[in-house]
Structure formats: structure tokens, C-alpha cells
């Protein structure tokens, strides 16, 4: 269960203050897929950064399953990211000199997953996202965009996090592949009982979510 209250984030620039996130509050249940719609510069990526503890809010609270996250120190934030959050990026952001399996195992390593179980867990996840076993040993450059995003999803879910933050996960993919990725996110979210927040500007993708929000000038509001 994710609970966000009164979240604020302001960036100070030469041109003045930019209120990237203003008084954002919402809740999301385990296994729920939430879409956040917004144009470029609306604050959606900043919101994801705050939820993923990549950045600290100026004000407000983030609560996951009763744990307050806003007050964590640097080590606590790192530990939280490795065990409770999974990221899926528009550009996949796989480590180029590691193969698909090693990319997944990397997340398991950071989460201190038992060493002997990492291979099996990585293979299980790659199988779950539909990547051929023959491609598990390939480096990202040898995989298609869709395959890379599948590996990224497997990596995001590897440590069984409670929260998956997906930033334009279909932005670099064709429509058919994008749809498959959305289906996959939903399926894995159900299986793993994780809350999935998908940031997108694609209405079709957003409509497939359980709930939809729109962010504009840093202000979030739920839409039907």
C-alpha cells in the first residue's frame, strides 16, 4: 500500500523557482496499476524521482506498508531503492557490458539476494517476461527494443519490490510491442502483488490502468 501526502518539490533556477511537484497526495493498493498522464515538463518524472527516493521532497510524506520513507538517511534510501522499488525506464538503461541474465542478477546482488539463488531467480524472471532462454546470455546491444524492455521489467521485479516506477516504458517501442509490455507489467504486478505507477503521455496506455491521474504544473488530480 502506497500512501503519499502533501508532497512538494521546488527547483531553484536562474529564471526563478520551478514548482515541479505541488501538494501531491494519493494512495495506491498492492497489485494496482496506476497511470500518471502529463505533458513534458509537467512534473511527472520529478514525482517518480521523489517516490523512488532518487530525490528528497521539500515537504510531505511517503508511506509504503506503514514505513515512512521521507526521513530515511542516505544509506536507508539506498537500501529502500534496492529492495522496495523497481525502475523501468523509457531507454531501458540496461548495463551494456552485462548480458540479460547478469543485468537481472545485478538487482538481486544490490538487494542482497542469496548468491546461490540468483541464477535461478534471474532465469525464472526472464522466462516470466517471455525472453527466450537462448537470449539470456546476450548483451543488450544484441537484443531488440522490446526484448531489452522485457529484461528491464525482469530486473525491476527481481527483488520482489512493493513499488514499480515505470517512466514512459513504451516510449521507445512500436505500438504492438508497447502493448505487450503494458500487458506484461500488469501481469507481473498481479503475480508479484506490487503497485505499478506508469508515467505516460499515451492515452491508450493510460486507459488500461486501474486508476488514472493527470499532472499539470506539478499538481496531480485523478481522472475518470
Amino acid at each position, binding site marked *: 500500500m502506497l500512501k503519499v501526502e502533501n508532497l512538494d518539490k521546488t527547483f531553484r533556477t536562474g529564471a526563478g523557482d520551478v514548482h515541479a511537484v505541488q501538494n501531491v497526495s494519493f494512495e495506491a493498493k498492492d497489485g494496482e496499476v496506476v497511470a500518471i498522464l502529463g505533458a513534458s515538463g509537467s512534473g511527472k518524472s*520529478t514525482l517518480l524521482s521523489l517516490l523512488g527516493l532518487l530525490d528528497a521532497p521539500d515537504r510531505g510524506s511517503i508511506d509504503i506498508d506503514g514505513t515512512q520513507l521521507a526521513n530515511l538517511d542516505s544509506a536507508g534510501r539506498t537500501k529502500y*531503492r*534496492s529492495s522496495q*522499488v523497481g*525502475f523501468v525506464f523509457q531507454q531501458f*538503461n540496461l548495463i551494456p557490458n552485462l548480458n540479460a541474465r547478469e543485468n537481472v542478477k*545485478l538487482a538481486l546482488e*544490490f538487494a542482497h539476494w542469496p548468491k546461490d539463488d540468483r541464477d535461478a531467480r534471474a532465469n525464472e524472471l526472464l522466462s516470466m517476461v517471455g525472453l527466450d532462454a537462448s537470449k539470456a546470455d546476450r548483451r543488450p546491444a544484441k537484443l531488440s527494443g522490446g526484448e531489452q524492455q522485457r529484461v528491464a521489467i525482469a530486473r525491476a521485479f527481481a527483488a520482489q519490490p512493493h513499488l514499480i516506477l515505470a517512466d*514512459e516504458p513504451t516510449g521507445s517501442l512500436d505500438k504492438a510491442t508497447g502493448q505487450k509490455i503494458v500487458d506484461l507489467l500488469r501481469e507481473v504486478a498481479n503475480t508479484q502483488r506490487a503497485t505499478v505507477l506508469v508515467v505516460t503521455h499515451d492515452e491508450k496506455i493510460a486507459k488500461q490502468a486501474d486508476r488514472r491521474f493527470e499532472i499539470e504544473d506539478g499538481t496531480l488530480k485523478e481522472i475518470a
Partner: protein
Amino acid sequence: MRAVGVVVILAVAIALSISMLIARDAVTSKINTVKASTGNTITVSPKGFFGFNGGGTPLKASAIDALLSIKDVTAVQESLSEELTSSKTSLTSPTPAGQLGSQFGFGGSNNSSGGGFGGLSSGTTFTIPVRVIGTNSPGNALVGGANGGGTEKLTSGTSFSPTSTSDVAIVGSTLASTNKLTVGSTFTAWGTKITVVGIFNASSTFTDSSVLMPLATVQKLADSSGEVTSATVVVNSVNNVAAVDKAVTKKLGSVADVTSTQATTEAALAPLNSVKTISTYTLIGSVIGAAIILLLSMLMIVRERRREVGVLKALGAPNKTIIGQFISESTTFTILGAVVGLVVGILISSPITSALVSASGGSTSTNTGGFVRRTGGAGFTGGGSGFTPPTGGFAARTGGNFHFGGVTNTLTQLHTSASWSTLAFALIAAVVIAAVGSTVAAGTITRIRPAEVLRSE
């Protein structure tokens, strides 16, 4: 390709530093060898003293004794040299006059009353006088050149004590053979019966024709109380010879000629010292250069992989894990560069050393011991077959001012080798270079904020 490029550049820098280190070691070794071979002694003789060709006033033993108070002086060996003509001794010199002796005609005469040095009148014959050295340093009486150089080694009998006043002598093996002397034999000098207590050999016909006696005995018999004709100042290190030379000269003033081979040696070694300086600075420069190369390379690598670092941080990688990965990379680069550089450095060290020595003006063959001439003059003691300079020093005439160092060093013949210390240096340099490169990379990594990296997507 980038990694290969970094390794190659590092290898070149490390090869340069290794070759400079080897060159420096070789030159330092050569300098030390030359310095050591020129000895750590300083010869003191009366001003203008020209052996028995005249000149000079004997030195006062009390003034020479005072030299012991000079810093870094470990001993002062005093000697009083006399030449015994046939009228003063029962000994016969083993050395024939030879052509040179007859031609120059100095060295005494058996027909003259006092054995003068002014040459012979026509029709007279002469014999070479027997040289007697009174010394307070038996065992080292020949050291320092003034007394012929080399070291006397007893072949039979015993020596006498430095402070002995007895009428005893140890005689050179050639002289003993000529005069059929053995331990226990006696001969006369200045009308006094002298007992032979030992026979010595210095591997030189010149010195083996001499007699060594206690300094006090010779001073007494020759009526030269409190006088010495030569002193050898022993310095604790070859590196201090120049300073002691100055101090001795200052202390004795105008009454003495002070000679050492140090000044000539330093001049001869100047090119090598220049190479040493160049190689030292190049060594430091190449290590710093290698560190800067790795530093910039790692900065470039971290900068190019900024997104990757951001992603790793987003995935929950602690800073120390990411820093460790980059340290591992920079260490790998450095070790590869060090290994390749070490091999290349060893291979190129010899030609580079030769080139540096040649470029710095070192001659291909330099007699660093030199034929050092100070105040005084040249002179030969006559002899049938001339003379054979002994190794380690040669004074052409007792008490004279010739110093043939006997040390011929080919300065460019340097032996380059990679010692364990060189390998240790390569390792330390690699560690320093890797540490510098890694530290900067670590600092950059720490400052990367994943949110900024991801926001730029």
C-alpha cells in the same frame, strides 16, 4: 579500443619512468664506484716539496696531529721519508740506475760525500739510494700515493707498533732478497744496527725496495725530531673528501700542499651527475604524467558512463560498490600498463642510458683517477726499467706531488639492470597512479545524482 589506448599510454609512461629509474641507478652506481675507487684519503706534503729533488720544509708533526680534530677525519697517517745512500747504510738498493737514472743522474752518488741531487759529474757512477719510510701506521704506510700506494702485506715475521721507538724494520721483499735479509737479520742505518722483524710485499718493485721503520725511530736516527714529510688523512666517506680537503688546506695554511683526487673525480663525473639529475626529473615527470593520464582517462570514462552510474544508484547500488567497480577498472588498466611498461622499460633502458650519457657530454673513456698534478713538479726516480705504477696510487718520487690514481673508468660503460627495488618502484608507482586515478573517479561518482541523470532522459 579506449581501454587499449589507455593501457598503451600508461605503458609508455611507465616504461619511460622505469627506464629513467634504471638509468639513474646505473649512473648512481657508476658514480659511487668511481668515487670509491678514488679513495677516501687526502695526501699532505710540505709546500713545494719535490721529493729529494729539493724544495719544501718538513711539516711539524704537531700540526699534522691537529688534523684529527677536523670533522669526518678518522685517522692521520704520518710518515717521514729518507733516502739512505751507501755511506749511511749497509743495504744495497735492488734497483739498477738504468738508462734514465744515468741520464738524469739524480738519486745520490757513491762517490760523493753527501749523495747530492745535482747530477753526476762525468765519469762517476752512482747507485739508487734505499728509501726508508718512518711511519706511525704500519700496515697502511703505503696508502695515499705519497709513499707509493698499495698495501704492504707481511710475508714473514711481524710488524711494529705505531708508537714503537725500537730500532726495528720491516723490509720490502725485493730489498730483502737483494741483501739476503730474513727475519732476525740486521743491517745498519745512520750507523745504528737495525733488526729486521718482518718482510713485506706490496706487489711493486718500487715499493718492495723500501724499508719501513717506526716513525719515532726514523725521526731520532735522521735527526728530524717532530718532523714529517708526508701525511695521509683518512676521511670517513668519499663524499666528505672535498670538504675535509678544504678544511685541511685552511688549517695548514701555506706550509703544505694538500692533494686529493676528489676535485678531478667530481669534474669527470659532472656529465654523469647531469644524467642523474635529468633521469630523476624525467622519472618524477613520467610518474606524474602517468597519474594524470589515468586521472583524465578515468574522468572521461566516468563522464561517459554517467548515465550507467545513475542507473546503478537508482537500482540501489551503494557508492562504495560503484566506486569499487571503477577502482577495479583503473587498477586493471594500471597493472596492464605497468607490466607492459616494465618489460618495455627494461628493454629500452640500456640504449636510453647510453643516449643520455652521450648527449650530456660524457666522454667515451675517461681516466677519472687522473694524473693529478698540484704544486710541485714532475720527476722520475731513475731505474733500469723505469717504473711500474702500483694499483691504487703512485707517487713518482717519495714525498712528491704526483698522484696517479690508477683508476681508469670508462664512464659510458654503464651496467643497466632491473633490481628488485626497480620492480618494487614499478609496483609502488602503479599503486600511486591507480590511487590517484581512482580517487578522482570516486569523487566524481559520489557527486552523480541519479535523479539528474534520469531527468535528462
